[in-house]
């Protein structure tokens, strides 16, 4: 496999397709959701019309077990990031909530990332770039001049690739997110028509404080090896998501949730923007233009404990 083979024609090639289909899919999704909402409302309305007799005006659910109201929730959890380009993160975290009512809780989620704990998990793409970078041997390491110095590939990548590519990758070290949780849906789940557990679906939103390490800003001298070092900073971003809770008994449960934490970061430390129309072309510097929007997202599984151990029951 020759290195030359990977040199690409059409530098700065545009994405293959227009975004019209993305827009189309958005419209279709909106239409489907709207239809579903309308049908849902109709059904509920019909259902309400039929209520007569002693049940008229009765609550939809009686003797509801109030798992959250007046209780503290403590949930050790593990979160796995999704759709990572260069580096995956696993967060070991804890969620604390206090149920003001059964449908509203205030609390916080926080976690420490696998990169900070000393085991970064790189993707196959990172491995491939590192392998090719090693083959090119562009840089002087340990006093030895790289055999590839002066080649076209080395000149074109000197702002973007250090001698150790994984060391220049961004990582999410820690997160802390005060948040509000709403529980609009409560119910039960039957497994194989024989095992029944109480369950709920919740939504949450808050502000996330994220400890990020990504490539430091540099101007003019961004080809030097020490310009590829990463530095810590704190990003503040919105966070939101939804999850399911399945109650094992009165005071323990298991949960699964999806969380989004969108903010800008420089995933690979590449110079990707800063010059030309809309600053869409590389400018040789590493700065805010090169930190691009990323819709960071993760899946979490948790084990929840509720205190006091006894729950209330509604009328």
């Amino acid at each position, binding site marked *: 496999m020759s290195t030359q*083979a990977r040199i690409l024609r059409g530098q700065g090639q545009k994405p293959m397709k227009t975004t019209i289909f993305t827009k189309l899919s958005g419209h279709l999704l909106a239409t489907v959701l709207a239809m579903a909402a309308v049908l849902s409302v109709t059904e509920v309305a019909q259902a309400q019309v039929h209520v007569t007799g002693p049940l008229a005006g009765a609550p939809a659910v009686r003797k509801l077990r109030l798992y959250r109201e007046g209780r503290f929730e403590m949930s050790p959890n593990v979160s796995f990031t999704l759709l990572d380009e260069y580096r995956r993160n696993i967060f070991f975290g804890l969620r604390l909530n206090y149920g003001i009512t059964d449908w509203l809780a205030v609390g916080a989620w926080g976690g420490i990332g696998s990169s900070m704990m000393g085991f970064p998990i790189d993707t196959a793409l990172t491995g491939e770039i590192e392998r090719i970078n090693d083959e090119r041997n562009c840089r002087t390491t340990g006093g030895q001049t790289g055999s590839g110095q002066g080649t076209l590939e080395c000149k074109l990548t000197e702002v973007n690739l250090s001698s150790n590519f994984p060391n220049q990758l961004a990582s999410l070290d820690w997160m802390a997110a005060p948040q509000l949780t709403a529980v609009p849906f409560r119910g039960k789940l039957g497994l194989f028509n024989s095992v029944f557990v109480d369950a709920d*679906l919740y939504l949450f939103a808050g502000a996330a404080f994220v400890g990020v390490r990504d490539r430091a800003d540099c101007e003019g001298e961004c080809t030097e090896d020490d310009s590829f070092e990463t530095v810590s900073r704190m990003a503040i971003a919105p966070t939101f998501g939804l999850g399911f809770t399945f109650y094992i008994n009165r005071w323990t449960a298991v949960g699964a949730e999806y969380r989004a934490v969108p903010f800008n970061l420089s995933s690979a430390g590449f110079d990707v923007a800063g010059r030309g129309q809309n600053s869409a072309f590389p400018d040789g510097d590493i700065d805010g233009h090169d930190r691009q929007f990323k819709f960071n997202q993760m899946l979490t599984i948790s084990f929840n404990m509720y205190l006091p151990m006894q729950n209330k029951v509604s009328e």
Partner: protein
Amino acid sequence: MKHTRIALLAAAALWGFPAVGFAQGEGEEAPVAEEAPAEGGEEAAPAEGAEGEGGEEFDDAEFEGEGGEGVGDICEIDPAACPTLDMAKEAAKPLDETIKAVQQRFIIKKHRFELQPFWGITLNDQFVQHPGPGIAANFYITEVMAVGLNAQYFEPFNNESAFNAQVRRAARVGVPLTEYQWAAAANFSYMPASGKFAGFGNFIFHYDMYLVGGVGALSTRPISVIDPDYRFFTYQPHVAFNVGAGLKIFFNRWFAAVLEVRDYIFIDQLESLTVPPDPQDRADEANWLGDTSLTNNVQAQLGVSVFIPFSFKYRLPKAGADTAGGAK
């Protein structure tokens, strides 16, 4: 005979009642209705697990014949056929009657067709998104098992991420990319879980969770990235297996929203990463293809589900309830 069954069922219900009460734990009242007052006309019913069985009125006198231990009218009509039952012995026998945990499901699916148009989005490919519309058709063999077909069309919707161009430009590294044309599969579905949710403490909706798996074909081709001046690929179908799980939320007895995650697994053919120096070799199609790769195309599919026929009837009545599950 019918009365005997009813008597045994009633005994079983009475036997089961203390167990349910025990499950509630101390300080909590006996199981009570956790059902909506009105779902498509249904009256409130006891909670699942006690639904139906524990709620019907039971009149001992109806089952008393001569001597207080007969089985009612049959003895008067045909004394020869009148069974003699020792109720103490009958009650002592082990009960193996199957009692449904949930009576009168919100929706009956057996022997109905389901049409499921959906829109799929890729969950695990940062390089090329493969969204596209699709449709699935299922026939329910039983309440919890279905066989069906599904098809999806991708060709105009493949969307290469800007991220690829950035990697190519910044690191001078090409990643082999693939775009999809269509997919079709025969599937088997099984619904191990179902339940209901109360929304805002005000209304109730039912849902199913299902597992699905199948086999079919997925037509793909490499996107020419490494040597686009010479290479042009045509679509080729590949055998594709699929497994997935989904959630179906019912708005009424024939219409539901569906969210499904499905993994389509196939061996994909990638573009060759090497470019021969000789233009004649570059033009030779035999040099265009490279490695194969076991590929997982994980999709989220959001759609709706329409059950046909729209209406159905319950086989057995439920006390005080509407027995017709008609279109609403």
